[in-house]
């Protein structure tokens, strides 16, 4: 076995390790939401993902998420909040609001209809 073969194998293994870390193990810091007029409002850009995708809000205060989809890809056409039974169609370029008041602490995940794009609201 020569060095280049070993090198390729090591690189391959490293790449696998990196994929596992980058896509599965990496945990992001959430975006803390500021309160405007008693409402925790945050704009979210939808383009290949939700930006920001982790939103930290306070319990018991109304939350307004303003989604703006900036792509025509069908995947992100819909945003679904399964846990609180809300969903909205996101027409390209328009701002669509999702409003709710989180009653208890925990996580409220949201995603596109196919589950490829994900985000969550962390209630504290």
């Amino acid at each position: 076995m020569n060095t280049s073969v070993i090198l390729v194998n090591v690189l391959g293994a490293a790449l696998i390790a990196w994929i596992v870390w980058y896509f599965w193990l990496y945990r992001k810091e959430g975006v803390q939401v500021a309160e405007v007029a008693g409402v925790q409002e945050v704009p979210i850009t939808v383009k290949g993902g939700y930006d920001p995708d982790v939103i930290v809000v306070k319990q018991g205060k109304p939350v307004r998420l303003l989604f703006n989809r900036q792509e025509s890809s069908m995947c992100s056409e819909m945003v679904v909040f399964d846990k609180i039974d809300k969903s909205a169609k996101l027409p390209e370029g328009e701002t669509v609001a999702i409003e709710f008041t989180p009653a208890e602490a925990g996580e409220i995940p949201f995603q596109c209809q196919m589950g490829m794009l994900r985000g969550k609201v962390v209630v504290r």
Partner: protein
Amino acid sequence: MNRTMERDTKTAATVLDPVCGMEIDPASAAATRVRGGVTYYFCSQQCAEQFDGAQPEGAPSKKDSQRQPAPVLVQSATTGYNPALRDSVYVELSLIGLSCSSCSTTVERVLLAVPGVSAAHVNYTLGKAHVTYDPTQTDVGAMIEAIKRAGYNVGADEMHIRITPSLHCASCVGFIEDALRQVAGVTEATVNPGTDTVQVRYVVGQVDFPAIKQAIESTGYQAARPLAQKDEPADDESAAHEREYKHLMRKFWFAAIIGVPVMLVAYPELPWFYLPNLFMPTVPESLVWWLFVLSGVATLPVMFYSGRQFFTGAWAAFKHHAADMNTLIALGTSAAWIYSTVAIFFPALFPEGTATPFYDVTAVVTALVVLGQALEVRAKGQTSQAIRKLMGLQAKTARVLRAGQEVEIPVEEVLVGDVVLVRPGDKIPVDGEIIEGRSAVDESMVTGESLPVDKAPGDAVIGATVNTTGAFKFQATKVGKDTALAQIVKLVQDAMGSKAPIARLVDVVSGYFVPTVMIIAILTFLAWFNFGPSPALAYAVVTAVTVLIIACPCAVGMAVPLSLVAGVGKGAEHGVLIRNGEALQTASQLKVIVLDKTGTITKGKPELTDTVPAPGIDAATLLRLAGSADRPSEHPLAQAIVDGARSSGLELVEPSDFEAVPGHGVETIVEGRQVWVGNRKLMQRHKIDVSAIEGDVERLQGEGKTAMYVAIDGKAAGVVAVADTIKEDSVEAIRVMQGMGLEVVMLTGDNERTAQAIARQVGIDRVLAEVLPEDKAQEVHMLKQGGRKVGMVGDGINDAPALVEANVGFAIGTGTDVAIEAADITLMSGSLKGVAYAIEVSRATMGNARQGLFGAFIYNSIGVPIAAGVLFPFFGLLLSPLIAGAAMAASSITVVTNANRLRFFKARSFAQTTGNG
């Protein structure tokens, strides 16, 4: 316009903040106010203060309770208000120049300073001012002035109107524009002579179409109704799909036109497939090399034009630590390109024989996947056809009475309270109540009920249904987004966007899918590199690329949502509104169906069924006297006798000396004869011998009917019986349900005997009788034991707790009350066949979703290993990346097409109606 589609969760009771209209939980409201005995809840202290400011505590406000909800109920000017019906008016003004949220407060302040304005709220995000004012004191013009003085501007809405005949002089353009600008409230008018249309910008709420029409007509032209408004989501959506399709097709042709020649110069080792061999028998090495270089250059625009979305999508996902189909395709095509380029320029880097370029993979795979996406977009558009069909039902114009004149106006301008005229064959424009005239209305498009329904004054009519032969006038009760049709559309859209529980499993899988495929690709590469035959590196690259390309996460993720959209749409076509994916999935698993008796199996209203005269009296006389005697009574049983007598063509007279004896019956004098109608106690009270008719009474009671004794001049004259009769199609619907393997149970508060009688007639074996209303939920709970899924069918109001307790609650609606809170499934028609249909359609949908899902899983779990080359050691079989690209495109199209099959679903429950007539 805010197009949020939200749904209340059925358990949490939320209220609306009367100031900003936000939905909040009363328990967590930031502030509350009590006015006129009504408690209002606010999302924030600020809203509460504004409420205080708008309506000072001490101010006399007799209309508080009416005025308060106005900003919430009436969302826009087009939703409609009628000044004649309400003394404060609500408008929505779009604001321009709001640059900060504190500006909202300024605008609110100046608006509230206008005399006559009672409430003003500015929504900064949407740039709208919501104003409630007294039209006798101020008008929109004054408010606009105030806003302008404060340094902001008021936006306008737009209307597009087609002008006929065709415009042919430039000066006409000026005339029309000038005429329009003179209309109060019009801010801008632009005529486009090329399309013969005029675009009018106007202040919302101040201008109506007739005024604009009049202005155009004053110039000698005719104005057609406004063209499709820009905020018609259905049109928007299909237009967007069409644009997307065309765009993708352009990309496909570009990739295909380059891809084919690239493929034809990619395999010099296959002489019959190598293009230059057509011109020369032996191709010099240098030409082969140059053709490769040319291919490499030509493939670049394919990657960056046709395949652009793969790279942008992959990058966007990557930034979010996510990976999707784009990632796989981008990796696959670019890996092929980079390998090829290195191979032709630095062949020395590779072991002998492995330096073969394959640019064709990049071009052809891009072409195929883009084609797949285009076809998918097209097919997806068909899946949601049902909802477009629903939206297309909306009438475009309405004939209303305005100032005593009959005018035709666009349906958007009909106000609540307007009197609408409907001619034979007309489409009914909005929801309302008939005030004059009679007709039969075909409501099949909304309720699924196939026979036209008779309508008389006082009856409700539903917008979008079609009048048959009669003419009538009705008063509009609901317009715009409050109509039954608009609510159905919203409910269906919401349901289509929801998730079936089965899809949650899929979500977990899709989160791991793409990175797993990438890891498999690397492992494949290493396996071939280490253990593969020579040229190992070439094999390693090709197999890794094939693995990346063949995997199809889209097919996995789309299967369930697409079937759901098709299934929910199919239900809506037959007046069955399924609330969400969970309701649909649970409905498909039901084993037991509990039917409430009154109003569900039966009509819920007693009707006269039998008239049995005693010897010596004829039936008509008996019924005429009994009917006349009962005429003043308000008791439902008495009314049933009166109605029955009338409908058999008998002329009833007003009784003299009428006395209702509570718990007994009535004692009257009719045409000079003493007539007593009532129960046995009434007969005993007058010591009347009833032995002659006792047998009939017992027989009728055995049939579940309520029998009433009639005595004339102190002698038993006969028996009249009333009963709650069974709906025409209940028997058939129950038979269909039993045929589907469901256990049908009847639940009623009625006595055992009546219940059994009805059950026998409809063919139900299991009866739960004498159940108190508050115990119904408990009974449903008992039936659920043993893990069987139980569906409960009821009227949605009295049966609400039982509907919630059941796994699936079906509410039998009556036309307009669409969104019945407690129900998982609402049946627009009163027919039980809707229940059978709902279960059938949900079973078909879930079956379809499983097929799609199973197909996609099988495809991936077979396709990926084959692409990796597991069959190579045994059969020498290796997949070309080109085949992988085609397979991947085909698999996602297959899933979409499979979901589309649901559109042709035929249910037994409705097929039988047509079969039996």
